[in-house]
């Protein structure tokens, strides 16, 4: 999913799924923040990984 798919309607419905109501005052900030995260997530999502071989460790010990 790309940032361009995130609009007020999406935010309202996705928030409702979490039991959250977004007020008109909060909407512009929520929208721009979610769009920014979507742009960064797109960069990560574009990286080819194997869902089996690249499984995250259940316990992270550097």
């Amino acid at each position, binding site marked *: 999913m790309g940032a361009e798919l995130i609009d007020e309607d999406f935010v309202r419905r996705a928030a409702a799924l979490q039991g959250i109501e977004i007020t008109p005052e909060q909407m512009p900030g929520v929208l721009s*923040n979610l769009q920014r*995260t979507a742009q960064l*997530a797109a*960069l*990560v*999502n574009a*990286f080819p990984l194997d869902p089996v071989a690249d*499984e*995250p460790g259940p316990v992270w010990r*550097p």
Partner: protein
Amino acid sequence: MGFESALEVAAKVRSGQVKAVAHVAAAFETIKARNPGLNAFVSLTESRALAEAKAVDEQVAAGRDPGPLAGVPFAVKNLFDVKGLTTLAGSKINRDLPPATADSPLISRLNAAGAVLVGTLNMDEYAYGFTTENTHYGPTRNPHNPAHIAGGSSGGSAAAVAGGLVPITLGSDTNGSIRVPSSLCGIFGLKPTYGRLSRARSFPFVASFDHLGPFCRSTADLAASYDAMQGPDPQDPVCRPGPAELVSGKLGLGLEGLRVARAGGYFEESAEKAVLDLVQHASAALGVTRTVEIPEAGRARAAAFVITATEGSQLHLGNLRKRAADFEPLIRDRLLANTMIPAAWYVQAQRFRRWYYTEVMKLFRDVDVILAPATPRTATKIGQDMMTINGVEMLSRPNMGLMTQPISFIGLPVVAVPVGMIDGLPVGMQVICAPWREDLCLRVSAVLEKMGVARFTPPKETL
């Protein structure tokens, strides 16, 4: 009073030359005189501190060892539990919680070493920020120029040390919250390896990345406080079992046998030239000629952003449902937005983390130490929304961690060292090593300090 090192204070108290009670009383006078201009402290623990100091003096009088940090005042970011105080974590919402019933184990361990807790420090609400512009408790100001931020999220911790209020503070670092304020206030900060220091009884932010660590004005103080806090703790599931690996005795080992390189690529592209010049100067002093590229560092930063957003908002989901209006206005909309992140983005970011870790570990086959800027620039002004890095305009608050996020993403140990001033404001460099090699970070920091390349510069107003 003000800029004595912790070890100098401890030596005087241990020898009986100075009474801990007198030193701590004087420290409170300094704090009360300087804090109004900085807003570093949120609360003072005066009666407790004087009782702790009295106990130290009694040990000295009885000929017993009062500990390596005897009589040294210290303070903690207000996300550490302090018995009898509510752990605010910079929030208004947490005021409704009951007082903590016990101290954080890191506080207990510093107390056991003779150090004296004098108060709690300001921070970004719930550690979500790099600026400590806290609407509920006011912004913390940079001791070098009060119109500028101290950095965050452990801004109070850095300002208190840089302003000469106390020689040791503790903070947390999830994406850079020890290294960013250390850099912007011109002091030394240690973010140990993920899992090194117990996080028990501290208010969390992002379980995957949360670290705790100390701030000081010298490498030796940093090592002494770190040594005092090490050791296993079954109360923190990620805290490493096994004995402490003490570093204070290793600081004089120098660069012998160490392969040091400077980080190129992303780390050169995302910082101002004046900052890179100072890192280059410090690198040259160490004889560094080699540059290494940490692979996919920009993507690592993006993945850290996604994981932070997801875990950080899940922590507060209940309150976001019930009382969103009570959150810090600067982070409320971000937290609300973060509750809607698809699970697939989060899992991909965690998978990428495993890949990135494996690749960075390959680099450490050929180098022991990597040098990189700690912040892309010096401190922005309080209230400044936008900043420019290399001609690119960007939001200032989320981007001050551009240099630090790709490193804490995989838990590597880092010492942030102050490497110079730009237009009267300090900036720091990250000394990055392989997991569990804090000793090497601190050795390089000690070498730079001995050369005079890395040093704390007292703020002009306090001289």
